[in-house]
């Protein structure tokens, strides 16, 4: 088959380039930190593209793009937050301080940063455990996003696709992908940029331009209302009805959960520390903003527009054309309506996105096991033993992630945007647990050790309880609520005004609780010694 041969050739070319750049980087040790040691400048575009590649994963493109195919262009609010919060606020207001404090405290991982900032071994250990236990969930949906695409493109089973892709990622990680060689990440970012820009252009072009494409999508509104009207859908170019089930899913889980949650992502916070100077952060804001616009903006717009394509061809909306498998909307759209070479370039784009994100995740999980967990227990391991423990940690988290990617689709009913939700759960949990102590720890000397510990614990526990007993899409599958109360969600269909409790995301409850406890306890408990605070914040 001509198409398969092309796919094989460009995949090989891509893997060769990745391998070659990795080798070059390895030989010349062009990692981010080399620039700091050698005092040279990295090219700002190279730097920013490598950031972008770590930010955006298959989850964003296939998972959230598919969600846009179901919920519509209202998901674009997430792009607004991705750029204004995930790039601008994160880089300008958190990045510079994270870098400075991380270097002052000689912290190399997120648990180490918060642990040293609040002079608490417990906090370091607790953060490491949250990462080790819950990050495999996020990694699994990143793998799932890519596997879903391979499943459609090669017409093979999901399980075979997952195994194939996991093997590639494992090989990449083993071959040194964790070193974060900047040119490799940047090449991956560059491929993603070109691939997504081309897809956006073609999708609009084939429907007669931007206005015409949107008008055709708007005209399909009755189809959306007839299927999802009860849940609050009002068409793919309209917001869901205020207070409806869909409104809560889009606003509280997809937009806020991920849009805010991204601020407290351990693997991204660590990236700020590897930057040579604040100048690089300023420059990265520029490329990062455009990069995210082209990635998520394209995925969400094309995901929504796919309904026009599917409907014109088969009289079915995207949701039904893909048998209610939301993650297949983007892959099916590309397979059916884009030239085969475009679909294959997208495949390479996805591979680049998954590999760069997954390597960042495995880096964080590996160091959490090797450095944070074992060091916190005070075990003075020999260097060799420490390396062994770290590698074992990576292997275990890799296996856990792949297993989860196998299991999740079995337990969750189809049609619930599992990849997007898995991402949202992890990010929401991170935000509720880490955001107050992280942001507070960077900005004010007044947050006390007890406040950071209890605030983080409270946010974490409340979020977890909310997921187990209230947020119905998860609680109904996890069965704890059913076992204790005999119903899938504690609140069922209970409403208070416009609040539909069973659809309110855990972040909305966990984060305020965490913030309040952190603030209140900071007012009534003993602050950290002045000497320690000087070490954290510098002499000024």
């Amino acid at each position, binding site marked *: 088959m001509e198409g398969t041969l092309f796919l094989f050739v460009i995949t090989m070319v891509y893997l060769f380039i990745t391998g070659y750049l990795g080798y070059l980087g390895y030989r010349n*040790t062009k*990692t981010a*930190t*080399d620039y*700091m*040691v050698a*005092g040279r400048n990295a090219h700002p575009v190279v730097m920013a593209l490598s950031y972008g590649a770590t930010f955006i994963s298959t989850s964003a493109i296939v998972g959230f793009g598919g969600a846009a195919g179901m919920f*519509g*262009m*209202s998901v*674009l*609010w997430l*792009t*607004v937050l991705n*750029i*204004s919060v995930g*790039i*601008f606020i994160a880089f*300008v207001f958190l990045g510079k301080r994270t870098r400075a404090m991380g*270097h002052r405290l*000689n912290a*190399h991982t997120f648990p180490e940063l918060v642990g040293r900032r609040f002079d608490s071994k417990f906090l370091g250990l607790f953060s490491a455990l949250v990462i080790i236990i819950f990050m495999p969930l996020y990694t699994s949906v990143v793998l799932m996003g890519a596997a879903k695409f391979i499943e459609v493109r090669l017409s093979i089973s999901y399980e075979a696709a997952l195994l194939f892709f996991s093997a590639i990622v494992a090989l990449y990680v083993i071959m040194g992908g*964790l*070193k*974060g060689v900047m040119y490799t990440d940047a090449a991956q970012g560059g491929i993603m940029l070109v691939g997504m820009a081309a897809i956006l252009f073609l999708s609009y072009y084939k429907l007669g331009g*931007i*206005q015409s494409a*949107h*008008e055709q*999508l*708007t005209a399909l*509104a009755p189809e959306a209302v007839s299927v999802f009207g009860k849940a609050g859908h*009002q*068409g793919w*170019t*309209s*917001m869901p009805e205020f207070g409806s089930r869909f409104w809560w899913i889009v606003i509280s889980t997809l937009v806020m959960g991920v849009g805010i949650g991204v601020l407290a992502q351990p693997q991204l916070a660590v990236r700020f*520390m590897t930057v040579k*100077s*604040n*100048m*690089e*952060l*300023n*420059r990265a*804001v*520029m*490329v*990062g*903003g*455009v990069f995210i*616009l082209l990635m998520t*903006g394209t995925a969400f717009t094309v995901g929504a527009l796919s309904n026009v394509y599917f409907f014109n061809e088969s009289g079915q909306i995207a949701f039904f054309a893909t048998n209610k498998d939301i993650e297949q909307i983007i892959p099916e759209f590309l397979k059916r309506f884009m030239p085969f070479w475009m679909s294959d370039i997208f495949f390479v784009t996805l591979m680049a996105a998954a590999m760069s994100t997954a390597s960042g995740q495995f*880096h964080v999980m590996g160091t959490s096991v*090797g*450095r944070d967990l074992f060091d916190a227990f005070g075990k003075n391991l020999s260097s060799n033993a420490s*390396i062994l423990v*770290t*590698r074992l940690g*990576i292997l275990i988290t890799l296996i856990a992630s792949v297993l989860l990617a196998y299991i999740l689709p079995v337990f969750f009913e189809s049609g619930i945007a599992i990849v997007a939700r898995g991402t949202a759960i992890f990010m929401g949990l991170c935000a509720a647990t880490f955001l107050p102590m992280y942001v507070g720890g960077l900005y004010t000397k007044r947050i006390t050790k007890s406040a950071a510990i209890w605030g983080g614990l409270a946010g974490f526990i409340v979020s977890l309880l909310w997921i187990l007993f209230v947020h119905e899409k998860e609680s109904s599958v996890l069965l704890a609520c059913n076992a204790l109360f005999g119903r899938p969600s504690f609140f069922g269909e209970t409403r208070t005004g416009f609040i539909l409790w069973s659809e309110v995301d855990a972040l909305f409850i966990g984060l305020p609780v965490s913030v309040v406890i952190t603030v209140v306890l900071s007012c009534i408990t003993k602050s950290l010694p002045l000497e320690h605070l000087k070490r954290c914040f510098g002499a000024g």
Partner: protein
Amino acid sequence: MEGDVMYLGIADFWVFLAYVLCIGSAVLCVLYGLINWNRNGGEITPEDVTWAKEEDKLSEEL
């Protein structure tokens, strides 16, 4: 929304606003990057170098 009022083919003003703000926030990022292109550069402290050396050792172990 009233069926007749459309913004760039989009039925709902709030979705149109998201569409515009996506582009607007990206433009803001570009302007910020351009204005601060050469600001806060250069100064590498001994702390930075110590940190970077240990980071290299750590990533080598991975």
